[in-house]
């Protein structure tokens, strides 16, 4: 189960595809979160198409790396990454948040193949990842565990219980990523409940802290490599991002945290992303079988 070998340009193209998926599925569902999925799209793409050993055709393969989005509300990016990686057909994205579809508003193990642990209540995911990492170490498994958190989520006390735990047990097989877009549903994180100085907090909890430009593919690739090399302590990547990244009218605006674009807004967004609503809907609809081996091709 080798990792994929994509060039940086190919990863950038993938991230663009994922952003188109996000906008299109949100436009169809008319329900769901826009801002966080777009800010997570670049590091999410690096995770799914570069960093992790995955086996979408055998989602429970023992030797795979494990990933868990503690921010369950960013399902538009999670589901797009999974579909593009071949966990299920792309057309399933068009049934996001519907009764007949399998893509729940927040990730559900028993609805969606490839989800290991359900999520949706903030603050719990790092603890779950700690359990996965500790259990993997007990088994002598080389697998790594990736946990994606939000910056607003850092306000949850359980995060810091888990931070203490991972450092205490020297879980160097954990790599956490924080989508540091500085916005949450009620406004700027520092206005709602300040979390700064975030890097210092994690350092004080004895983590290896890596800062990265969350929209620079090369910076993200390097950050994951640094995390992989760190021994004896867990790593956290502070991915500095912009909420709504890639869609001009959404960027850096907290009001796009939890709402989808209208059809017209989606059309504009998809134009900015180099396609159209009908064209991208058609692409998703025509993929009725799993893209088992995603081609390392361009965004066209």
């Amino acid at each position, binding site marked *: 189960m080798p990792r994929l070998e994509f060039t940086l340009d190919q990863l950038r193209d993938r991230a663009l595809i994922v952003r188109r998926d996000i906008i299109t599925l949100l436009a169809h569902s008319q329900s769901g979160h826009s801002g966080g999925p777009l800010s997570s799209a670049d590091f999410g793409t690096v995770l799914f198409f570069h960093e992790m050993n995955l086996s979408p055709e055998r989602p429970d393969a023992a030797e795979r790396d494990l990933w868990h989005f503690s921010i369950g509300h960013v399902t538009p990016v999670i589901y797009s990454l999974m579909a593009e990686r071949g966990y299920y057909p792309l057309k399933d994205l068009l049934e996001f948040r519907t009764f007949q579809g399998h893509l729940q508003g927040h990730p559900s193990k028993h609805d969606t193949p490839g989800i290991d642990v359900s999520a949706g209540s903030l603050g719990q995911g790092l*603890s779950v990842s700690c*359990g996965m990492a500790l259990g993997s170490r*007990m*088994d002598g498994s080389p697998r790594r565990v990736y946990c994606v958190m939000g910056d607003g989520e850092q306000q949850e006390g359980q995060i810091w*219980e888990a931070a203490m735990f991972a450092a205490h047990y020297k879980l160097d097989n954990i790599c956490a990523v924080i989508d540091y877009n500085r916005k949450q549903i009620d406004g700027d994180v520092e206005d709602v409940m300040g979390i700064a100085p975030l890097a210092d907090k994690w350092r004080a909890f004895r983590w290896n802290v890596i800062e990265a430009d969350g929209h620079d593919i090369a910076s993200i690739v390097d950050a994951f490599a640094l995390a992989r090399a760190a021994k004896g302590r867990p790593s956290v990547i502070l991915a500095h991002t912009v909420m709504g990244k890639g869609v001009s009218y959404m960027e850096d605006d907290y009001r796009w945290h939890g709402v989808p674009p209208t059809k017209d807004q989606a059309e504009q967004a998809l134009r900015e992303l180099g396609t159209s609503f009908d064209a991208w809907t058609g692409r998703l609809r025509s993929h009725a079988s799993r893209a088992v081996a995603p081609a390392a091709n361009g965004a066209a």
Partner: protein
Amino acid sequence: MSQASPISPPGSGAPPSLAKPEMKKTREGFGHGLVELGETNPNVVVLVGDLSGSTNVSYFAERFPERFVQVGIAEQNMMCVAAGLAAVGKIPFLATYGAFASCRAADQIRVTVAYTDLPVKIGGAHGGISVGPDGATHQAMEEIAIIRSIPNMRMVVPCDYWETKKATLAIAGDRHPYYLRFGRESVPVVTTPDTPFVIGKANTMREGKDLALIACGVMVYEALVAAEELAARGIQARVLDMHTLKPLDEEAIVRASRECGAIVTAEEHQIHGGLGSAVAEIVVRHHPVPMEFVAVHDRFGRSGKPEELMAAFGIKAPDVVRAADRVLARKTK
């Protein structure tokens, strides 16, 4: 009914004495059960939130330190770490006081453990008013109501040392999440090592057709004592040990309802949402009969000796007898 002893649990072996019962801690049964599991199942791991001694997981910790995880005072983290361990194939048992396991970590149980349906086994120690001197904050009396309302959760409230040990072994073999509730104090032993324990199957501890006493936990003993007193007055009470709160033994409840015509439930738990409520849900649907509820009536506990607290909060054998008299008066109307 056995003449040698008023207690006749199913299975072989000498029946325990009701008048001078052997006293053992249910939490010892949990601790000993875990050690036995540790020897037979390499996937069993144990987590604790800084309460190794009082939950008796220290026995496992001494024998299997490589599979023992001290989490510190962080119950919410512990619940989700257990879930992560379960997600990679472990069978995690965690231990803390029931007040913290069921209330503080309720969201973690609901979202991460139960919604994912992971085989996390929650050991909730110090259940009930019989916790004693620690007082209200440490006397968990809401767990049944909380846990049984969460989909995918299973729940066992064993009555004594042997049943706790057997329940510990049994729930390890089931792929679903469980909450196991046990107590602090030594309580009467009313079963034997041979008494069968089947998840979801109530044990008939005493036969009778005038009324049914349906109990769980330490209240099984109180119900047996009450049944003995009723028998002296010519009233034959059936006593059911309803050790599994979920899935509930509906068949045994409906049979008791049909054959006895009156039911008293007895539990060391708040009256709202506990065993009594669970039994009533079945009774009203299938065969309504008069019911009375022996439970704590919507009050917080307080400090005191276990025995005096149980009496003060109305959950001793005489309270069961009084409830039986009330329900029988309604039955014959």
